[in-house]
């Protein structure tokens, strides 16, 4: 068992140290900001447990809980814990491929999916859930600073970057990222389709110290082309852990 208290203490130290090293006083570059977004949201190697709730007009909200193991340099392994209908389904997101294995279904092999598809009917794409850093797929440029009205924090001065897709394989054409000027904490993201249409907006809130990392624990992704449709991801636990490479092997998916 991992001692969470020790990890939290270490994480807090690392967090303070990295904050002090950030070049916030000297106007960070777009790349600095995107790197900071990656480090604010993700650890290099971690396990996490997340609950995802999707709301659509006229329908009761649906909820799903899954557990993930991620490495920035490899990808993400996910297993659904609830609801009962999909419990046990596993996903393996790698660079260039996505696999799903349902132990209760009639197939001995994992099924190959496309990473552009919606993740389990949510407003998140498979790539949103599986990706552990933006800087691999997007090239950032500075945009004018602005003040946003955050639903939880009120008016917040933000630095803004336009992160454009590096290749056609990226899930989005562009992501505009708003980070709090004081500590580069990401608070809002706007997702553009490859056609240039703004179609999703994510608000990040409930910034929480998980020990290994201090990050927003609630991410609310709103579909702009379907009014009233949104998905809320709540990070219930995230813990720094050296996830072995074998977790990202298809053998692990069907074990």
């Amino acid at each position, binding site marked *: 068992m991992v001692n*969470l*208290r020790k990890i*939290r203490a270490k994480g807090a130290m690392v967090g303070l140290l990295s904050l002090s090293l950030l070049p916030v006083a000297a106007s960070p570059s777009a790349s600095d900001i995107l790197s900071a977004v990656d480090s604010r949201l993700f650890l290099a190697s971690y*396990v996490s447990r997340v*609950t995802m709730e*999707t709301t*659509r007009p006229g*329908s009761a909200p*649906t909820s799903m*809980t899954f*557990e*993930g193991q991620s490495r920035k340099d490899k*990808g993400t392994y996910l297993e659904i*814990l609830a*609801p*009962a*209908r999909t*419990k*046990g389904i596993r996903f393996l997101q*790698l660079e260039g*491929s996505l696999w799903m294995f349902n*132990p*209760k279904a*009639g197939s*001995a*092999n994992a099924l*190959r999916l*496309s990473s*552009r*598809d*919606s993740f*389990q*009917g*949510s*407003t998140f794409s498979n790539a949103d859930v599986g990706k552990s850093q933006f800087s691999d797929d997007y090239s950032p440029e500075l945009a004018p600073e602005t003040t946003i009205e955050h639903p939880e924090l009120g008016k917040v001065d933000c630095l803004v970057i336009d992160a454009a897709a590096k290749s*056609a*394989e990226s899930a989005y054409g562009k992501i505009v990222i708003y980070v709090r000027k004081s500590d580069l904490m990401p608070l809002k993201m706007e997702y553009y389709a490859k056609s240039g249409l703004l179609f999703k907006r994510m608000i990040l809130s*409930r*910034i*929480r*110290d*998980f*020990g290994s990392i201090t990050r927003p624990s609630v991410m609310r992704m709103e*579909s702009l082309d379907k009014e009233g*449709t949104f998905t809320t991801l*709540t990070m*219930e*636990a*995230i*813990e720094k*852990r050296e996830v*072995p*490479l*074998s*977790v*990202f*092997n*298809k*053998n692990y998916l069907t*074990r």
Partner: protein
Amino acid sequence: MRFAVEALLAALLLGSAAAAAQAQSPAAPAQTAAEPAQTAAGEEAAGPAAAAGEEAGAGGWSMSADLEAGASLASSGFDPSSSDSAALWILTADFLHRYDGSGWGLVLSDSIDLSGLASAVAGTGGTDSLPAFTPAITIYEAYARLDMGNWGQIFVGKRRMGLGIGSVFAPGDLVDPRSGFWDQKTGFRGFDFAASLGSDFALRAALSLDRNFEAWAAGVRAKTATAASVAATSVTTSSATSALTAYPSAATAQSTSPTPGQIYSAALDGAAGPADPRLFTWAGSADAQLGSLQLSAAAVFRPGAVERPSLGFSYDLDGLIFQAEGAAEFSADGAASPTKPDWYGTAGLHWTIAGDSDNLSLALDYDYNGRPGLLDHSNYLLPWISYARTDVLDAYARALVGLENPSALLSLGLTLYPAQAFDLEFTGLFGLGSGDGEFATLSNFAPIPSPGAGRLSTQVGVDARVHF
């Protein structure tokens, strides 16, 4: 027997189940009770609630179950009033138990089927082959896993293992061959070793003892039939009839069908006994993941009977997924030889169009069989279309089409999700065309017996399913 196995498993796992449940329970309720203080920057300190019961990645015991109740109507023609037909009520329960410990694990996947005959209508073929009530317990998988560090696992027991690339057709997989075109829950019995060389390369080796178990079972049946036959000669005719009813395999001994002894000899296939290593089936495979390209090489070997290497690949081209696999049989057991192998192959493509909550999937697979074996025809197509609206419905239409003497099995399904753990499913299965080979009866594909001697052409059903 299943209850005994589950009770044993439950007793073994009871100690860790509570801990697992605690570890897996969401932390949110506790957090609400002790709401963390928020700083001026909007940060929440890690309060006492955050430290307890939150650990991600914990193993432990988990169980899921699906209970299904419904009814099915099977008919040898499309018009039940002029055909042999039977109505069956369906009552099944599927269980999946898992235990993940530190360095080891257990899996048990099983099913209890209490389905039975509700009523039958005799047309021209009679309905005498229908059992009134046939409770059945099926163990799809039951295995133990032993981890070797982070890189390898040894599996012992009955386990599914897909060899090669194919998810529908698998021309190289003779260790755990596809038993149906859209259902493969049953594993092979034996040993399996998996090695993960980093994230991109995988090696697997398997030893199947299925042939050994089949020979052993055939031997037991032969001895039982012999005993019944001896008993039958020493009693009255009526007593003999009872004995033959009790032991159906003994009845076949008096017909032109192979005797139990002959069946046992065939199962031994030249081996000295059920434990003879000549009945072992060996397999090995190597898989590589190179970005969007996956490559697979595999081989199956049984001394003097099977020598089947195969090669396959799959590639994701911006959401369009191609896959193809080819195999060659070099065994001298059949007509094939090292210089003149039998060829097998499959190719297919899959495409999914996804919206926020809608998915439309299209797939087409082709299969070629150089020689009848697992399949009777030489050329098959399997088109498949499915539509899913998350948490609302799932619908599909798929068909297995034989291109010689054109025949087809058409399968339709609609599942509605009126509540989060409750499904309502409507299914239909239809036989079309000349109906030779595996198209002769749907009962190989539907979970019901044939209604009679006539060819089964139609099966429709409705089921309610509850998930736990």
